[in-house]
């Protein structure tokens, strides 16, 4: 017999990043349906959902509402780092856990968050370690003007500098802004080997469209490869043909050409992971997350999360978008997360960046 437990869902169905939240939301709901249909698991989930509508101020009150008014202790959701930071105080107050299923910039390890996707040592660093020797050392960064864009550029700058490369430019535009003339002009003048694109949503699609125009000009047919750690299959339709050739890094890409990408898949896997952690252990849903993970070892399930930093071990896959599908270029075996980039910073690349010159 299954016991039924409430779980929360806190994903926006409208607003700036609705396309991403939509993919994550479908992943959660698919995961719930699969768990509920799985007779080998003794838990079933009932979804308690709130829609923040992409408005930052709504996350904390709605998170509180779920934790206060329902039995749910585990909430799946949040896309932006800002919204994640908003809900953490509520999780602390009510003893809740956020299952966060999208990539982020690292430098956090809350005891109330299950970081299920990837952080920079699992996406950005492997991506640059592939790009610098393969594409060239002239880099250009463009990002949305908030923590994701800033921190990705900062880490990338360190990495490019260590490889004796040049950062030709580093530009930010407001979230949602599509006025890109100055950036395109700069790229035309500087001709970088690659562009790290940390723009989100409409800004990103507008940028890709303008860059595709530039690439049709004489002399720009090669180079200008776009790299991203946040572009997945769930944005292919919005970006259209202009995204062709983009190289992305992430823990999972659609093998059959689906449209949800890792935003969908990791959300789905997160629901399964919680079900496995709770299987055969009535009452375990109220345990602190680290205890839930640590004590699961005895029940025969190997948890996806590191019991100390509560980040998932993930492979780093680098893939290129061709004809609307990501094709794998390189795959690193599952790497432990290093959210503060203090451990095994070197483990993710296979040739040393410094060579002895004789």
């Amino acid at each position: 017999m299954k016991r039924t437990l409430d779980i929360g869902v806190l994903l926006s169905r409208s607003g700036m990043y609705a396309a991403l939240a939509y993919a994550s939301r479908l992943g959660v709901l698919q995961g719930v349906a699969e768990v509920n249909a799985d007779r080998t698991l003794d838990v079933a989930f009932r979804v308690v959902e709130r829609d923040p509508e992409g408005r930052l101020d709504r996350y904390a009150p709605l998170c509180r509402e779920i934790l206060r008014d329902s039995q749910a202790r585990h909430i799946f959701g949040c896309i932006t780092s800002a919204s994640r930071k908003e809900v953490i105080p509520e999780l602390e107050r009510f003893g809740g856990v956020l299952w966060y299923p999208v990539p982020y910039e690292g430098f956090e390890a809350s005891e109330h968050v299950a970081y299920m996707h990837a952080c920079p040592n699992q996406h950005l660093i492997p991506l640059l370690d592939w790009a610098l020797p393969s594409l060239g050392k002239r880099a250009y960064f463009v990002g949305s003007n908030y923590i994701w864009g800033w921190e990705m550029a900062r880490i990338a700058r360190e990495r490019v500098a260590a490889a004796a490369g040049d950062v030709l430019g580093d530009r930010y535009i407001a979230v949602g802004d599509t006025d890109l003339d100055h950036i395109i002009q700069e790229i035309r003048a500087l001709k970088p080997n690659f562009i790290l694109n940390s723009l989100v949503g409409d800004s990103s699609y507008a940028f890709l469209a303008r860059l595709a125009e530039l690439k049709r000009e004489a002399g720009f047919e090669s180079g200008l490869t776009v790299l991203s750690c946040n572009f997945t299959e769930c944005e292919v339709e919005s970006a259209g043909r202009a995204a062709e050739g983009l190289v992305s890094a992430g823990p999972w890409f659609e093998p059959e050409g689906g449209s949800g990408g890792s935003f969908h898949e990791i959300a789905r896997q997160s629901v399964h992971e919680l079900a496995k952690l709770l299987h055969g252990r009535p009452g375990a849903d109220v345990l602190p997350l680290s205890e839930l993970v640590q004590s699961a070892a005895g029940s025969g399930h190997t948890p996806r999360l590191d019991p100390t930093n509560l980040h998932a071990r993930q492979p780093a896959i680098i893939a290129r978008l061709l004809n609307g599908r990501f094709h794998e270029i390189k795959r690193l075996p599952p790497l432990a997360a290093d959210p503060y980039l203090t451990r095994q910073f070197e483990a993710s690349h296979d040739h040393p960046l410094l060579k002895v010159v004789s």
Partner: protein
Amino acid sequence: MTGIRTENLGGATAWILHRPHPSVQGLIRQLGVIGLVVREAWPELPAEAIGADFIFYDADMGHDEQFPWAAGQSPMPMIALIGSEAPGRLRWAMEMGAHAQLLKPMSDKGVYAALLVARSNFDRAKSSDAIITDLQNRLSARQTVVRAVMIFVMQGKTEAEAYDLLRQTAMAWRVTIETAAERLVANHSNERGNDDGRRIDLA
């Protein structure tokens, strides 16, 4: 390749000077997550703590004798763990040389920021100290420079000529103006010592 490691915290050693207490658990956990090696001590820091990269110390029950160095003289960044905000306790924590602080009970928040702020403040204080020492040396050297200029003036040069001569001398000897002045003054004193009798005769 340490240069590319973000802030170089991996493998750094932090000592926590606090009696065993649940309020410290969050700090120990978070330091481990960040990648530091954590050592605990109470009631005194052992001498080997001198080699630590960071010290976290209890501001509530702490006192000067717990540290193997004088107040404010720690050879590494120090982070005060503050429970009571009574002015007396805060003053002691500052006098010990807090480069940053954390409030009790310590959680997963603020630890990384405290490490970076403490190291930045420590580094700034250290470089300021070095600049101050250098300026003090130069200040005391100024008197010597004036005396060296006066030697040339006594030999009939104008003040401007005297300064120029001192500058040329320093260049010729490939030393700083201060060092050149010191040598000139020393030589002059020696000559004067030998000449003293004759000068008196002349007078």
